[in-house]
Every structure is written in C-alpha cells, then in structure tokens.
C-alpha cells in the first residue's frame, strides 16, 4: 500500500498490522528516549487546508519521533477561495521532494485526487477530507477499543460499538464504520434521522434513532461532535432537545454495561453531546485516544515510508 486514503482500503490483515505496529512503537515510546532513527532523511509534509491543531500536532510528533523532517504547510484557504490551487501546491511539494504528504482538506476526495491525479509521487495520508473519511482517527479508535476490550491483541470480532451524533457530516463515523466492520465489530450508528446520510440502511452497520435502547447492548460508545453550524440549519429543533435525546449524561451512563468505555474524537462540546461529568469520568478514554493517535500515526508513516521490502516496493 502506497497511500492511506480510506479506512475501506484496509483489509483485516493490514489493519491489524498497523495496530500491532502502533502497539510496538507505543511500548518503546514509554521509555525516556522517544525517538527512532527509522525515517531519518525522509520528508513529511503536513498539508493542512483546514485548521486542526490537534491532528496536525499529532502527525508532527509522530513524524518527529521517527526522525523524519517535518514541514507544516498551512494552506490559506482552498482554490475555492482563490488561493493557490491544490494542484500547484502539490507540484510545489513534489519539487521540494516530499516523501509523504499528510493532507487535511475541507473537500471530500481531495486526498484521493492528490494521490491519483499524477501531480506527486510520494505517499498520501488522508488526515480528514470534508465529510468523507478520517482513517487514522478510526485506527486510533480501534486501537483504543482493542486495548480496553481485547487486551490489545487481534481483531475486534464481536465487539459492539455505538457511534452517536452527526453521522451525516462525520468523516470519523464513515471511517469507523468501515474499519470496525473490517475488524469484526458490530457497529450501530445512532442519530436523529436528519443527521443520517441518505442510504445509511445499506451501510455495514445497524441504525437506530433511540440512544437509550442501544446503550445497554454496547461495549463502547463513541460520541461525535455536533458542529455549531448544524445547530442553525434545521437538522434538529434546538440544542437542548438534541442534548436531551442524544447527549451522553450520567443517567445514560447507567444504561451502559459496567465494562463499556466512552470515546470522543474531540474537541468536545461539553454539555451538548456529552456532559462534563461523563467526559471527566473514569470510563472516558479521550486522553488515551490522543496518546494512541501519535502511535497510530507513527505506525502509518513507518509502514508507508519505512517498510520498504527487498524489491523496493512499499508494503503494509
């Protein structure tokens, strides 16, 4: 595999390889010296067309721990707003010798385009594109779930996961549905009908409008951020009504089985989709997710750039 564009491109073997590699890297980074020489001399560009400090920093730390040279390229606006076009930006990075481009873009499919339009030779890692996908987020979520519910080994066969919130606009949800299913988990997406995509009934997951009904039957619940711009576009009547029907509060925590964990990709709207006491509770694993994100991104960069086989082909 040369690029990581979609969680759907990963089969169970390659997904587990990334998770296992991340686990190995994590065990080493617990030591005092956190750096590996693996990617010395390689250049990783973080090409961010959207502000996302946490994802950008996560990739930056990951690349630096592998001794790669990291360039942060914060492209102001997209070609839509008359900035430099994606193509010209790509040609520039190619000329500068980028070995991998980590791209965050507001337009669905932009990483796909970057990887296939013939503009660049390097590897492309999708760090979130529009309302399409965010595969490294799904990998770090799977890693976190596996750590808590499967002793950090193997796949996720039989694990039951609810993904709750704005499924329609969520790249995190799309990547998670694909990856968790590949790993053998049973996924239920929970949302008001207005925040479910047309055709969701054909996704490889169950669908529910009723959070209370779903919670007793899951091992992990992933709460999604509700973007503020949705709050005024008739997707739901009011913040309060959304929070009452789909927010995770202490009462709803009581419906979960005792072993169940709570995930959130961040940043959280405390008091909206998740109450503060749940977010700060001991079953919430958000801080771990952030730490695991670094390990996952190290694993992805390592496997895309460092895992060169004898015949010169890059393999995951």
């Amino acid at each position, binding site marked *: 595999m040369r690029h990581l564009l979609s969680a759907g491109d990963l089969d169970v073997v390659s997904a587990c390889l990334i998770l296992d590699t991340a686990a190995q890297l994590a065990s080493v980074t617990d030591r005092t010296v956190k750096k590996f020489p693996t990617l010395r001399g390689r250049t990783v560009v973080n090409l961010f067309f959207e502000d996302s400090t946490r994802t950008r920093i996560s990739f930056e730390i990951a690349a630096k721990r592998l001794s790669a040279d990291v360039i942060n390229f914060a492209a102001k606006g*997209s*070609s*839509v707003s008359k900035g430099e*076009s*994606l*193509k010209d930006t790509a040609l520039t990075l190619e000329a500068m010798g980028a070995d991998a481009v980590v791209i965050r*873009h*507001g*337009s*669905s*499919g*932009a990483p*796909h*385009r970057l990887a*296939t*339009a013939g503009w660049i030779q390097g590897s492309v890692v999708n760090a979130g*594109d*529009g*309302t*399409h*996908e965010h595969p490294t987020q799904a990998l770090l979520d799977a890693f976190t779930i596996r750590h808590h519910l499967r002793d950090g080994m193997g796949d996720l066969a039989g694990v039951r996961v609810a993904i709750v919130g704005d499924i*329609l606009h969520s*790249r995190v949800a*799309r990547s998670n549905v694909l990856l968790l299913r590949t790993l053998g988990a049973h996924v239920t997406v929970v949302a008001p009908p207005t925040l479910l*995509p*047309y*055709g*969701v009934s*054909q*996704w490889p997951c169950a669908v529910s409008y009723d959070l209370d009904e779903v919670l007793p039957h899951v091992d992990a619940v992933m709460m999604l951020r509700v973007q503020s711009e949705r709050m005024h576009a008739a997707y739901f009547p009011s913040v309060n009504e959304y929070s009452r029907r789909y927010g995770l509060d202490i009462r709803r925590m009581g419906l979960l089985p005792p072993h169940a964990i709570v995930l959130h990709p961040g940043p959280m709207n405390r008091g909206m989709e998740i109450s503060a006491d749940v977010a700060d509770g001991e079953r919430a694993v958000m801080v771990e997710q952030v730490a695991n994100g670094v390990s996952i991104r190290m694993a992805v960069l390592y496997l895309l750039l460092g895992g060169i086989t004898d015949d010169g082909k890059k393999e995951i």
Partner: protein
Amino acid sequence: MPHDKTVLRGVRPYGEDPVDIVVAAGVIAEIATAGSGAGRVIEASGLIALPGFVDIHTHLREPGREDAETVETGSRAAALGGFTAVFAMANTSPVADTAGVVEQVWHLGKATGLVDVFPVGAVTIGLGGEQLAELGAMATSAAQVRMFSDDGKCVHDAAIMRRALEYVKAFDGVIAQHAQEPRLTVDAQMNEGVLSGQLGLTGWPGVAEESIIARDVLLAEHVDSRLHVCHVSTAGSVEVVKWAKSRGIKVTAEVTPHHLLLTEDLVASYDPVYKVNPPLRTSTDVTALRAALAEGTIDAIATDHAPHPHEDKDCEWAAAAFGMLGLQTAFSIAVLTMIDSGLLDWRALADRMSVRPARIGRALGHGHDLKVGAPANICVVDPRASWVVEPATFASKSRNSPYAGMTLPGKIIHVLKAGKPTVEGGDLAC
C-alpha cells in the same frame, strides 16, 4: 446551371433505399434515383442522410468566457457534430438578458456561418430570479428570441415563473426551465444516494428536480402556456412529464447524451470531469430516460455542451465547475444508447435530434423532413464507422469530455447548411 447544384450521391435517407438528393438554391430540389442526379457530386453511398441536428441547449460562453469557448469555436464543434442549428444559453457575462446581448450573439453566429445560432434569452435580469428581463425586446430583436431560460439557475419563485410563462404567450415563446429546487440542493455535488453518503459528497436529490417540474407543469396548465424542461435526469421526472402530457399540458422535455449513458458510479474516482448539473444518476434512471426518449415522453436530445478551461476541472471535486462537452459526441452517444439498443430507428432519431427540438425552439428553416422543397439542412452520417474520442482534437476550445479514450459508434461525414457544405469528409469544409 449544373454547378449550382449539389448531389448527395447514393445516400440513404433515414437509412432507407439509396437515392440522389439534389440540392439547389438552399433547398432540396429533387430526390432522384441513385446515380441520376446532376451537379457537384458528394459521394455518399452507404451513408445515411438525416435532417441537420438542432441543439436546443448549448453553452457557447461568449461574451465573457472566451477562454472556454467562443461562438466561432462552438459553431465549429457543432457543425462537426452534425448540427445545423444551436441554441446558445443565456448564462454569459454579461447575461443575455437584453436585446443588445442576444443580438451580439446572433451576429457572431451569422459571421461564423457554420450553424444558425439562436440566442436564448434570460428569463430574469442577471439570472437573479427576481425581476423579468425584457423578454419582449429580445423577441422582437434581430435575434427573434423564442426560447427563454435562466439555465444554470432555476426560476424558483413560483410567481415569477407563472408570470414568465404567461408573458411569453404574446410572442409564441417558451420557458426552458432548469429544474432545481435551490433549498434542497445547497452545495450539492452529486446524485443523492448510497454513494453520495459513502463519498461524503453533498447530495443532489432527484426530488429537487421532480418537485419543480411538478409545480411548473401545473403552472403551465393553469396559464395555458408552453413549458420546456431542460436536461431531465431522473425516472421520477419522466413520470411527472408523462402525466402532464397525458393531461394535454404543453410541456416538452430534453435529455442530455451523458444522462443517457453515464451513471453516478463514475464519481467514485473524484475526477471532476464527471461533475455535471444535474448530476449523473443511477442505471435505473438511465434506463427510464432511454425508454422515455424512445416513446416520445422526452422530446429531444440536447447536449448541454458546457465547455470549461482545464484549470476549472484539474482540481479537487468541490472546487471544480459543473459541465461536460457534448456537441462533437452527441450523435455517437445517441447511436450507442438508442440505435444500437434498438430503441429508436433513424427516422425517430431524426425526430428527437432535429424535428422536435426545432419545433420547441421555433428554429425557422430547421427540423424539416428530407423532402423536395425543404431547406437543405442535411447531416450525412456513417453508421458503421467508429472512432476513438480524443478531446485534444476537438474544435471546441475546451477539453472536458467524459468520453476521452472511449471508442464510439457512428461518424458525421458531411453536413449541408442551407445547401452549402459546412462539413465534408468529416472535416470542416471552410
């Protein structure tokens, strides 16, 4: 004087028995036994003669976007595509919403002379959807506009649409509606379906088209005026049009070649060459559109030829412009989808690509049957030839063809406009 005559030697009108079509003084002077006609001979044995095609939906981009297309380059593409008349849409810059702009386009068409260019007038000022443009002034201008459209934008205000439908009755006009409910298609990028959900591209639901068509046919019935529906793209729209026609409502409809062939699956590549409005739909829709064209519920094939400069397609999906080239491939796509499938015979294809579109747009001198006395607007095609689409060789200034690299059936060999060859042997005659 024999030199004043041109003979299409041994040609088969509508694929029927070979004859000589003798053309003189811009009209069909004689249809004679094959081999007997006298005059300047254009060898056409084995080829099929059809009335020159009429495209009621073309974007020639002039004035304003001469980097994408001009009346001249668009006319060349049209002639090479077998057309003798095209209707130039109004979404130019400035918008064709005054007599001055439509006359400019009309004069540019005359100057080029390869096809008759019929300017379409905007329905509302600046395509803004709020205030009627001076439709009467455009109708009585030198361009004699009969078709009005805000194409690219929907006349979404029901009261404006009603007034427009009423007003154009005074000069036998027609409102050609781009049926797209704007509130249901904010930021829409592709057909709304399972795939749009997976790709994370905002959906353009069929209901946004169908609801406007339903409203408009009822308005057309209420005010007893003529409505034309541009680029019908869904099976549901076909049902609405069919129902309206069964009630005697004066509605006509067109379908584009790309909606007769291509489906939304292509969007999974995120290649903007497949970005078009209305979007590519499903194979169910394609099947319904072909059947509707065959039975006549849909009256015409219209290209929606939409040239765009390379940079407007060589980018990420959301940033790309909507639209595809169509003029030089329309006939071949029609052969592929309608003739080769047995859905239409040649006479019926001529009806959908010439006779009916000419009638819809009131294109005087076009869309006549191949009979003695008819204007000699004739397209001669080779049904057996095939060719590989190479956009770089197109006469159009733009290259955004979704058919690049495809081998397509059917070739345009000769075209006569008012008796004069515009295309001979597959190349421009002048």
